[in-house]
């Protein structure tokens, strides 16, 4: 395949795969509550995830190791269990949020309660993974995910004041509800810097057989793909600000969100919203379930691969076979999907040092990267964002739980 085509496909994957339940819900809540004021959190998160995704791809291309595999080898199985448990817990909650997102999209269009959709959706996801290939999961879902660009169209039709959007790039304190402001900021960071993104990307690079000739593609795809993806999240903030914030509407339920696109785009906006939510969450759920299987299988040295038949990598397939029904069951209980989404994003932010610091150590180890180790700028930037997100999460999560 020509390099240009690979870059184009990679960009499509980055753009189409960026928006999911977490980034959509956090951006919409932030816009409704604080207008354009939290755009800086999206920008910060987008830069951090672009750098992390590039690192995951570089590690795979240069060392032929996936992240969990290299972590276990470098730090030993006892240490590896710490990030393993953190990522498994957080990813499971995020997986349940994504399953809930698909179910809610189906509820909006059919009128049948989302709880009834949980089992069929979990089965559909499992079937897709069981029968599908890595290309179908990665490229197929992301191509369909381009429907999320409708948020950009919606935002443009609402004519956002560009000066205010630009001002949102500079952090500023809110006039009210400071704890909620920081909690939202941290949830946005958690949604943007989801570990599943760079774990999945690194495993995908090994599945696709990347070598050092892919380093240029890796850089372009990680940088541009994530930046364009972040633009969609900014568009969601713009829609929420102009449709909801202006009327004093705060987002407490998913049922309020289709109005973001119905106002600028009419009935087609409603349909596009439902399609965006369903496709983005379905694609993200596939990637998260697969990433959980990659993580466990690679960490314990089992045979793995989405392109391998399930019977030849049975324990790998067992992981997503267990995770998906459990996520579905959580939704069947009628859990508040919006709260689950927002809290799982804040927990993701809290767990960032545990998942990111080992990666940074690996990325500075010449045994793995040779002369392709990290520069001080990427080390410093990623570490700063992760520590900031973790500390703010540590403070705001208890405050939020206490309802302060």
């Amino acid at each position, binding site marked *: 395949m020509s390099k240009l085509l690979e870059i184009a496909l990679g960009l499509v994957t980055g753009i189409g795969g960026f928006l999911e339940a977490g980034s959509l819900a956090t951006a919409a809540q932030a816009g409704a509550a604080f207008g354009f004021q939290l755009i800086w959190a999206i920008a910060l998160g987008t830069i951090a995830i672009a750098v992390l995704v590039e690192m995951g791809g570089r590690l795979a291309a240069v060392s032929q190791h996936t992240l969990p595999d290299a972590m276990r080898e470098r730090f030993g199985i006892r240490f590896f269990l710490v990030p393993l448990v953190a990522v498994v817990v957080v990813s499971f909650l995020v997986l349940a949020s994504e399953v809930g997102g698909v179910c809610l999209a189906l*509820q*909006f*269009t*059919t*009128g049948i309660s989302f709880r009834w959709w949980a089992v069929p959706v979990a089965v559909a996801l499992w079937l897709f993974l069981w029968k599908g290939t890595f290309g179908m999961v990665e490229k197929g879902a992301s191509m369909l995910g381009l429907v999320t660009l409708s948020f950009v169209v919606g935002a443009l039709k609402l004519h956002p004041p560009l000066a205010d959007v630009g001002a949102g790039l500079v952090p500023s304190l809110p006039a009210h509800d400071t704890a909620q402001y920081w909690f939202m900021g941290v949830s946005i960071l958690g949604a943007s810097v989801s570990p599943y993104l760079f774990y999945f990307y690194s495993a995908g690079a090994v599945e696709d057989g990347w070598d050092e000739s892919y380093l240029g593609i890796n850089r372009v795809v990680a940088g541009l793909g994530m930046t364009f993806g972040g633009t969609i999240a900014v568009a969601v903030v713009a829609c929420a600000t102009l*449709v909801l914030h202006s*009327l*004093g*509407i*705060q987002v*407490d*339920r998913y*049922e*309020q969100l*289709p*109005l973001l696109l*119905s*106002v600028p785009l*009419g*009935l087609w*906006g*409603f349909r596009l919203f439902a399609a965006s939510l369903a496709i983005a969450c379905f694609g993200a759920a596939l990637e998260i379930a697969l990433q959980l299987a990659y993580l466990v299988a690679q960490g314990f040295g089992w045979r793995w691969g989405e392109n391998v038949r399930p019977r030849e990598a049975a324990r790998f397939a067992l992981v997503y076979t267990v995770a998906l029904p459990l996520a579905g069951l959580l939704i069947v209980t009628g859990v508040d999907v919006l709260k689950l989404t927002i809290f799982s994003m804040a927990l993701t932010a809290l767990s960032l040092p545990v998942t990111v610091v080992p990666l940074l150590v690996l990325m500075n180890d010449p045994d793995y990267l040779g002369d392709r180790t990290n520069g001080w700028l990427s080390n410093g930037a990623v570490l700063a964002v992760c520590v900031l997100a973790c*500390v703010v999460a*540590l*403070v705001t999560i*208890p*405050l939020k739980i*206490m*309802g*302060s």
Partner: protein
Amino acid sequence: MRAASLLIGSALLTGCGPSASAKVEKATIALRSWKSTLWLAEQEEGRGAIPAKFAEQVRRAAEEEQDKARAERRKAAAE
């Protein structure tokens, strides 16, 4: 880090939640927000931008959340 742990620790120890007046204010804001949501949903349904089936779901959600907010407000006012 130390300041953060101190803040959380003292908050947990003193059981510091929001004051009654803050709870009343939060519930009032929620009620206002749902009133505006209902108004917007009606407008959207009226111009055919959302299906009636979905408008009904918004109405049900609004009812549930408004009941919750009213109960919160009553409870806080009684404190």
